[in-house]
């Protein structure tokens, strides 16, 4: 019997008869929690969020309560709240469901969070391609404003906060929080150097800013409803609440599923919830948390010690589906995008596809990522076009090693971790590609000359 979903955020999303308008939302108890929150002190809400242990669901998994407490309240500058709706991590399609099917949940969560940090204004930065989503959000905000749940004097209180929906223009780097802030300010989305530009101190317009993912902000409403400590009982310590997992790839039932953290393993997700590998084929690899996370090979063993001292020895199937599970296996849960690959997958082609994405999306500000990401793409592109050489596997790893940790933002790691893990775990395929191509070491097909050195 497959583990049942625990739909908290997506509770109403696919309910027959449920529509995204405010009337339907309020019929299901919508905006009651906003009223409750307005009766609490802002610090009380922050404490509840901290007690809940809720972690960011955008990819970094940073505790939201801690982030709220980092905000600089001494500068006298206005505080801003930004919702990161620039869902661009390959494999992720969860925030879109919330925006299209239950936008008011996001609005309510946004207003509660804004009140908790006493934000002067709230922004929703939505990726440019989600044109419909942006329109739906704007409609929802208008509806909310008409009923006094957004804008001036929310819920009759003396707290006012406008929400501005800002559309992006097609760049993955606008999902990086400081890249987002630059884009929101109307500039090229070049991430800022940290130090000194930590958003909690110098964020939007150089004012303290809280940036959080759509799903994370929706959780705030539920935290206010049940209280932080009750929320923390869902899931397990350090992995509280539910998470929406976007499963894609070679499974029979790809889609989005919401589970209590740690309620099941990756194996149960793939084989029971998603109906197993399509066509009855065998599992080859899983990317556990969006293309930026390190790939896991079927048959690999992950060994280590838990926090309580007990030892674990896992295969992919045994890894708990939460934050710490994939981390213990040397990868990360990222944005919750699980990409499943079966034995028909050519790993070099898959690598080339991933490298092409990162080369296209690199903002170009700093040298290692700008040049390295394109170089990686060119190497795997050449390998797939018949020009693979034996030493290309080591070259890919060396280039990736030169990028990780040397860049302004985490894009450097995001582009290099896939390469490092693919080479570490599937080197045989990269070498085989070269042997197939029949290229002697040192000569690249089409280059017409021998390498010196």
């Amino acid at each position, binding site marked *: 019997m497959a583990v049942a979903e625990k739909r908290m955020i997506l509770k109403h999303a696919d309910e027959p008869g449920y529509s995204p308008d405010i009337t339907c939302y309020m019929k299901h108890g919508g905006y009651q929690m906003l009223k409750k929150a307005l009766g609490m002190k802002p610090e009380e809400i922050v404490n509840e969020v901290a007690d809940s242990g809720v972690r960011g669901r955008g990819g970094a998994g940073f505790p939201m309560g801690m982030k709220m407490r980092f905000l600089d309240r001494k500068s006298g500058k206005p505080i801003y709240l930004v919702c990161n709706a620039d869902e661009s991590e390959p494999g992720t399609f969860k925030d879109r469901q919330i925006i299209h099917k239950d936008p008011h949940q996001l609005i309510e969560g946004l207003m509660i969070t804004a009140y908790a940090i006493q934000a002067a204004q709230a922004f929703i930065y939505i990726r440019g391609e989600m044109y419909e989503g942006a329109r739906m959000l704007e409609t929802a905000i208008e509806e909310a404003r008409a009923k006094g749940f957004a804008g001036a004097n929310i819920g009759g209180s003396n707290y006012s906060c406008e929400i501005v929906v800002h559309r992006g223009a097609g760049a993955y780097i606008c999902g990086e929080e400081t890249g987002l802030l630059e884009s929101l300010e109307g500039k090229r989305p070049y991430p800022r150097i940290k130090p000194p530009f930590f958003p909690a101190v110098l964020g939007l317009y150089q004012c303290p800013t809280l940036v959080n993912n759509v799903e994370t902000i929706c959780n705030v409403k539920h935290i206010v409803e049940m209280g932080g400590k009750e929320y923390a009982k869902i899931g397990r310590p350090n992995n509280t609440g539910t998470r929406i997992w976007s499963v894609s790839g070679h499974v029979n039932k790809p889609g989005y599923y919401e589970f209590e953290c740690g309620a099941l393993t990756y194996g149960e997700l793939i084989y029971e919830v998603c109906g197993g590998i399509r066509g009855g084929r065998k599992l080859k690899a899983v990317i556990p948390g969006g293309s930026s996370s390190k790939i896991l090979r079927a048959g690999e063993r992950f060994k280590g010690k838990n926090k309580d001292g007990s030892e674990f020895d896992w295969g992919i199937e045994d890894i708990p589906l939460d934050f710490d599970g994939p981390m213990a296996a040397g990868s990360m849960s990222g944005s919750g995008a699980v990409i499943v690959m079966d034995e028909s997958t050519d790993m070099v082609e898959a690598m080339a596809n991933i490298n092409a994405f990162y080369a296209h999306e690199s903002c170009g500000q700093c*040298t290692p990522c700008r040049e390295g990401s394109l170089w990686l793409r060119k190497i795997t592109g050449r390998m797939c076009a018949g020009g693979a050489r034996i030493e290309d596997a080591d070259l890919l790893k060396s280039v990736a090693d*030169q990028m990780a940790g040397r860049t302004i933002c985490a894009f450097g790691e995001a582009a290099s971790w896939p390469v490092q893990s693919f080479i570490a775990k599937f080197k045989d395929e990269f070498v085989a590609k070269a042997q197939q191509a029949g290229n002697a070491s040192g000569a690249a097909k089409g280059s017409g000359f021998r*390498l010196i050195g």
Partner: protein
Amino acid sequence: MSEQSNKPQEVTINIDGKDYQVPAGMNLIDAVKQASGKEIPHYCYHPKLSVVGNCRMCMVEMGTPMVDRGTGQPMLDEKGAPKIGWMPKPAIACASKATEGLHVRTDSPMVQECRKGTLEFLLINHPLDCPICDQAGECRLQEFATDYGRGYSRFVEHKNVKPKRTQIGPRVMLDDERCILCSRCIRFSREIAKDDVLGFVNRGSYSTLTTYPGRQLENNYSLNTVDLCPVGALTDTDFRFKMRVWFLKPVSSICTESSVGVNTQVWSREGKIYRITPRENNAVNDSWMPDSGRRLYKQVESENRLLSCKIGGAEANFGDAIAKAASLLGSEKLAIVGSAHSSVEEQFTLALLAKARGAPVYVPAHLGEGDGMLISADRCPNTRGALVTGLISALPKPKLSELESAISSGKIDALLVVREDITQAGIDAAKLAGIRIIYIGTHSNATSQAAQVVIPAPTVFERAGTFINQNFRIQKFNACVPAPAGMRAELKVISEIAQAMGVEGLDGLTVPQVWKQMTTEVQELTGLSFESIPDDGRQLQAGRFASIRFPEGPSLRYNPESTSTATA
């Protein structure tokens, strides 16, 4: 303010195992250079521009003393020295400030790997243009690749293709393939030149520098981006393909465009000047200069350059010219027209001659609109020199109306004119025909054509001397190229004329000799000598002229309102 020293607070930082004292909060690249002399290689950082940290070349290993979380006490190692927590990832030095106890490793294996990696990345798409690139010899990519690079290439793919040899403005050529996207030019244009015309378009490795659509890089400071560009992406169109820089000899000089006294470097080879670049002086011009000042070297070989002595329009030798000049100037109704383009030494000597002969001295002013940056309203480099040396005692005016009426009324019948075309100062050319004129100057003009005797003089590039700028800062300039054959220095000319006229005490003058006399007779120059003036000049006490309302407004480093005359 109070008597306490305004020395900034100092902190101790440790560079490669040695402790140094540096001002607190100082940028780490500057602090390491100042304290230990070590260069941390960098491209995008510049002390006068905002920090962006995008080239990743200045990465160093950093650590801070570890503190026990429980006791708050510093942790010590086995030897009793403070334990340093080294950061696992390298940090960029340009975005770091000197703080107490900061430890830096500038040459560890991690740092060497970082530099090799960054250079490799910069070189993979960089075109193999060295043989035709003007930057060769002064290219930081070449230099750092030699010092810190891997030494061989592993790149066998196709390089990116971007627009090459694009004229983005009247004076600047852009080659986008060479650009390493450090953004120095963009930040300079936006923050210093206040002309936000440059920017990046496209994304990732296809990022390209370009000008705003429909606009050009044509402001009068555009060539500073060429100086700033660490590679050969932005180059000077005037200098393009003219000369390899390793053949050029740089000599320090001062720009004569205005009284700002921009410090310059004049590059020449075998007597021919090829270009002028700014010289750093944080009291005058930072690291910048206007484009218009860079072209002043063209006057050296201009068509109307005076090259030989002339008597009555016919070529003559120096001795005859001097004798003729002395005889023509033997009148009692002699007047002298001096110049604010002459050096302090020349003005002092002319003043002595004027005093000896009791002749009145007139100096015309050349005024224009100041640009608030590095061109002031006074378009002469040495107006204040004329005041300090006593050549004149009041602010010069553009029109020499007194001299004009004196000529008209017949009070003046002989003029010694130095470096000035007085028809531009309100004297009608027709009137010149009636008086005897001796002209000493560099280029032919209406006055020199009306003169009975013409004696050529060297330009600022062909002689040494000093100018006093708008802030009463005395600055040296040196001879960059030899003067044309047979030409004597202005000092020599004046002293020869004086001797021939029977004036005592002005014979055989050279710059050091003039200084010996000036230092005792000129109040502001007491205790100085030509040799003792530092390369970046010396601030003078100018209290004597506090009541004069000079025409200059604020410049980059000069504010007439808050000018203090304290020594700097």
